């Protein structure tokens, strides 16, 4: 039995404890194979009818592997046993993030487990990496530049006060307003609904992102980026093939995406390489000298999952905004009536 299977079994066993579900599909990523030194034959990448490496299908990047290396960890890879312990700790942390005691703020919420939204109820890919970040070697995001710190402080000063966060729709965060929910690039796992669909044509790659229902349309014909005056939530992506790897450069982000504090000058380079029938190695490099002292890179596997993806048409059912604003207006009305009553006495 190889290490990958052992790890899958172990993960399955540990996940029975804190999390409950009907069915789980667990698997380890390519890294587990390379670390375990198994002797797989070189993978022959399938081709599309156009002769390009085939990345098509439904994929997920659902994982407990953190972006940054935990404070008490100094090595790049765990042993399988250590990986199990780290995943168990993450699962326990996930489970402890909501207090289901009646009458507490966290209890005013539906149960994520009942709706299958905890990570263990989606195909869970895992590998032996201690962090997604591969460069710098310490697995941490590099220090922020002075310019980056100043910009962050200015942004913070512009935010509405806490008391006004739900007072008007413009003050409600953009994710709740279904405008942008962190689709990227870089494409990091969202809290839930971590599904992707890739479709390829001769001159385009399309990536559907389940969370927030975003679509990335990536031209492959070498056209330049649009002028700097054109700014987009997902940036502007241009792709090309380097051997079996799809390389995508994205620029022209708007100034409200702010990935991890990045400026609108952010440039993201992504690399997609099919390494097995059920795995894409996804690597990305973050380049923004006005925010970080140097570039940084990360890697995580995308694992095959079943489709299709149900459309996450966020605006369609977003009754929450109207309910929240109506709640604030009702509270204001009650307060005004109470004040008037007091004044009349």
């Amino acid at each position, binding site marked *: 039995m190889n290490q990958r299977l052992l790890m899958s079994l172990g993960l*399955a066993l540990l*996940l*029975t*404890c*804190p*999390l*409950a*579900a*009907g*069915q*789980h*599909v*667990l*698997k380890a990523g390519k890294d587990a194979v390379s670390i375990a030194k198994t002797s797989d034959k070189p993978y022959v990448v399938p081709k599309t009818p156009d002769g390009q490496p085939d990345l098509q299908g439904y994929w997920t990047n659902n994982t407990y592997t953190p972006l940054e290396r935990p404070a008490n960890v100094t090595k790049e890879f765990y042993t399988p046993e250590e990986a199990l312990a780290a995943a168990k700790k993450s699962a326990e942390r*996930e489970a*402890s*993030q*909501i207090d*289901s005691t*009646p*009458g*507490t*703020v966290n*209890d*005013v*919420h*539906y*149960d*994520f*487990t*009942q*709706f*299958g*939204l905890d*990570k263990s*109820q*989606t195909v869970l890919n895992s590998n032996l990496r201690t962090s997604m970040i591969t460069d710098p070697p310490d697995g941490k995001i590099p220090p922020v530049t002075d310019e980056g710190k100043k910009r962050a402080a200015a942004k913070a000063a512009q935010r509405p006060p806490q008391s006004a*966060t*739900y007072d008007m729709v413009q003050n409600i*965060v953009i*994710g*709740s307003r279904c405008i942008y929910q*962190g689709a990227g690039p870089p494409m990091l796992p*969202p*809290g*839930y*609904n971590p599904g992707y669909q890739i479709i390829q044509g001769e001159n385009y790659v399309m990536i559907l992102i*389940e969370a927030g*229902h975003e679509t990335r349309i990536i031209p492959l014909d070498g056209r330049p980026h649009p002028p700097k005056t054109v700014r987009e939530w997902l940036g502007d992506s241009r792709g090309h093939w380097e051997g079996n790897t799809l390389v995508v450069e994205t620029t022209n982000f708007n100034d409200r995406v702010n990935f991890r504090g990045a400026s609108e000058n952010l440039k993201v380079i992504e690399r997609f390489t099919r390494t097995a029938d*059920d795995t894409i190695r996804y690597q990305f490099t973050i380049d923004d000298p006005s925010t970080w002292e140097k570039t940084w890179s990360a890697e995580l596997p995308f694992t095959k999952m*079943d489709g299709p993806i*149900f459309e*996450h048409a*966020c605006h369609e059912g977003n009754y*929450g*905004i109207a*309910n*929240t604003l*109506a*709640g604030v207006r009702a509270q204001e009305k009650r307060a005004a009536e109470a004040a008037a009553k007091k004044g009349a006495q």
Partner: protein
Amino acid sequence: MQRKLVITLLGTGLLLAALPVFAHHAFSQEFDINKPLQLKGTLTKWEMINPHSWFHIDVTGPDGKVTEWMIEGGSPNTLIRLGVTKYTVKVGTELTIDAYQAKEGTNKAVGRNFTLPDGSRLFLALSGAVPGGAPDSPQK
């Protein structure tokens, strides 16, 4: 070689709710922590929509009067992948829902727990759910 390992697990222990890092919005702003209630009713419609699904139930009061309530639940995407559809949660299903009423004061609430008449919790009880579609789904 495809090393897909599919393991069916039976959840037997204490069920703990897991809150992903990304929660869509602050529910305590939409619903009133001081208005917990338990509703027993019949499902009349399930809006399987995003970002949150909504359950419409008819609740019959002690005086026989029927009142319609709308109950907010979670995103349906994973349920659908697990084979839960409108064919597995049918109109007419009896539900007991622990909930918190909306601050705006109408018959809306967030459903903390959805329980079936036999005491099992909705969805978690659907152990027959399989990826690709439910057994009684007409698509299969």
